[in-house]
């Protein structure tokens, strides 16, 4: 038994229940919640330490039912890397929330919902079963609905309505795709699906419907990742949600879509032989590579252009994260289009995911600090923050330059690896779009800096009153952006191990199904 696989899930679930039970005792609830956050980081660290150096996937059979009949949780380096991202973002966001959310809001529901969202995210990263992926998505989404509508003003209700209806339709589509996949392959266990698709003839699996159904699933994952053309709920939802929730939505929840694409399309579906159809791409994976590239190019251009025109800090960051997810998807597209460079592309996507999670959650928390301390986050009403609060301004600079990609910040390596992957695979369209996207990033980051932080302090900034704990959380993330860049080598090694784990189908199938030899 590999108990460490289920540890992060249990920690987050227990914290959610405990914070619900102690909601009448404000201080105790906040203490438990932060303690649970620390426990989550510890559990993830235990998982990373157990999985990453040894390499092979660790499998936890729920209720000791043997796969493929029972439900399994699978932890390999890819899941471990994504969980590490989740852990480094949730803890600062949680500490920040104890000082940012009103006491009443915390008491009523914030902490249980936040931890339940973490449960959903953790489950999505760990599950080895396609239907369970749907269930964990729902756990994550249901709590995120309530967190987005948390302030329940006019702006929040409209944004949430959009977010909810879109995601409910997405869930129905996902259910259709999963049901069809079950009928086509006869199994829901990811390793078993991969195994049967690799030996399609032997198991009598028709690959053509599988291709169509995976395309349906793909649309749902792009919706979760907030990529163009499924992006239009993103700005409203991120602007409406409380700052720590936006930080987790952009830093972690978005990455669940990226993870699902990586796991399912590179590990599970890639083994399928290509049906004889007139489609772009030479393989099933190559077909999705073309689609991914188109989505990535559109996201980078649209997100960047829209962010340049924003006057509200939260909306600017939200549009920026549409553009940034484009960079991640571009690296995945490069990996899908040229299988011999797949490891390079996935490594780039993972490093960029970490970069974006650190920098964007830092900036969302900072936007919350600015709103709390100055009473506004409209860039036109701000100004001179650099003089009023050098610490906050310095953190913004670190986060902004992290997005832009200046060495030695971790953002530089993210950008560099994405460009490297696109160049190595000769994806000229992607390379050109990424270049434009990078220039647009410089434009909106410097625009926000000039309007909000440079110049004479405005009336709003004169009344500046920042909470030290909130500022400390932002500074901690800024230190993280610098430290991850300076000590980059171990992170690169970890990301490479994650990419190898995503591509090593045989190891995944063998360890989940516990059978040797005949694995794909």
């Amino acid at each position, binding site marked *: 038994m590999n108990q460490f696989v289920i540890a992060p899930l249990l920690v987050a679930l227990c914290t959610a229940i405990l914070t619900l039970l102690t909601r009448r005792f404000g201080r105790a609830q906040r203490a438990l919640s932060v303690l649970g956050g620390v426990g989550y980081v510890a559990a993830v660290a235990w998982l990373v330490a157990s999985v990453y150096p040894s390499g092979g996937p660790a499998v936890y059979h729920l209720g000791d039912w043997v796969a493929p009949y029972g439900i399994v949780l699978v932890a390999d380096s890819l899941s471990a890397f994504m969980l590490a991202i989740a852990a480094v973002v949730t803890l600062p966001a949680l500490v920040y929330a104890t000082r940012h959310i009103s006491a009443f809001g915390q008491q009523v529901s914030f902490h249980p919902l936040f931890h339940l969202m973490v449960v959903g995210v953790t489950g999505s990263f760990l599950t080895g079963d396609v*239907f369970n992926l*749907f*269930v964990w998505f*729902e756990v994550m989404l*249901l709590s995120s*609905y*309530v967190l987005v*509508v948390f302030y*329940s*003003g*006019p702006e929040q*209700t*409209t944004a*949430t*309505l959009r977010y*909810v*209806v879109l995601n*409910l*339709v997405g*869930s*129905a*589509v996902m*259910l*259709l795709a*999963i*049901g*069809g996949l*079950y*009928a086509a392959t006869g199994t*829901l266990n990811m390793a078993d699906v991969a195994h049967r698709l690799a030996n399609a003839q032997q198991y009598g699996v028709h690959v053509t419907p599988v291709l169509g159904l995976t395309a349906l699933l793909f649309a749902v994952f792009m919706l979760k990742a907030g990529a163009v053309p499924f992006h239009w709920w993103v700005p409203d939802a991120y602007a409406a949600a409380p700052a720590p929730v936006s930080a987790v939505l952009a830093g972690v929840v978005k990455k669940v879509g990226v993870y699902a694409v990586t796991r399912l399309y590179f590990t599970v579906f890639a083994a399928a032989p290509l049906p004889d159809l007139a489609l772009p791409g030479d393989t099933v994976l190559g077909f999705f590579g073309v689609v991914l590239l188109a989505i990535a190019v559109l996201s980078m251009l649209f997100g960047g252009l829209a962010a340049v025109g924003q006057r509200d800090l939260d909306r600017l960051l939200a549009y920026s994260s549409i553009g940034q997810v484009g960079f991640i998807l571009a690296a995945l597209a490069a990996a899908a289009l040229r299988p011999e460079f797949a490891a390079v592309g996935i490594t780039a996507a993972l490093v960029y995911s970490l970069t974006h999670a650190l920098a964007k959650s830092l900036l969302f928390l900072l936007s919350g600090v600015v709103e709390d301390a100055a009473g506004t986050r409209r860039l036109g009403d701000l100004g001179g923050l650099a003089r009023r609060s050098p610490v906050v301004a310095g953190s913004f600079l670190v986060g902004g330059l992290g997005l832009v990609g200046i060495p030695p910040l971790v953002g530089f390596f993210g950008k560099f690896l994405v460009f490297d992957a696109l160049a190595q695979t000769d994806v000229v369209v992607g390379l050109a779009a990424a270049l434009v996207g990078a220039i647009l990033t410089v434009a909106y980051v410097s625009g926000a800096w000039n309007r909000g932080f440079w110049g004479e302090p405005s009336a709003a900034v004169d009344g500046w009153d920042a909470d030290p704990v909130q500022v400390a959380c932002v500074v901690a993330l800024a230190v993280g952006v610098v430290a991850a860049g300076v000590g980059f080598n171990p992170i690169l090694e970890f990301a490479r191990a994650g990419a190898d784990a995503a591509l090593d189908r045989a190891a995944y199938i063998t360890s989940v199904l516990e059978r040797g030899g005949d694995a794909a």
Partner: protein
Amino acid sequence: MTEATLAVVLGALFAFGTYLVLRRDVVRVVWGVTIISQAANAYLITMGDIAGSVPVLSHHGPPFTGTTDPLVQALVLTAIVIGFGTTAFALALTYRVYEEHGTIDLEEL
């Protein structure tokens, strides 16, 4: 015959759900989403082979040979429970939208 009927019913449900989702009234949109997800549940049931099979507990009644796949029914039960939760939330949200905006007409929001 069963398949044809089911296919027609499923198609009609999806069409009706989509029609409702495209209305201006928020309550109708919520109804539409609910009908679409129920149609997805019904579709899921058909994935367990309809023709010539019987419920899982085949010893109730005459001795049957074939049984339906119990897994899809378990999946649908899970999906229904999740559907309950999301529908309840969507309706509560609709009420909240009405409180905040004084209207549930999407054009006026």
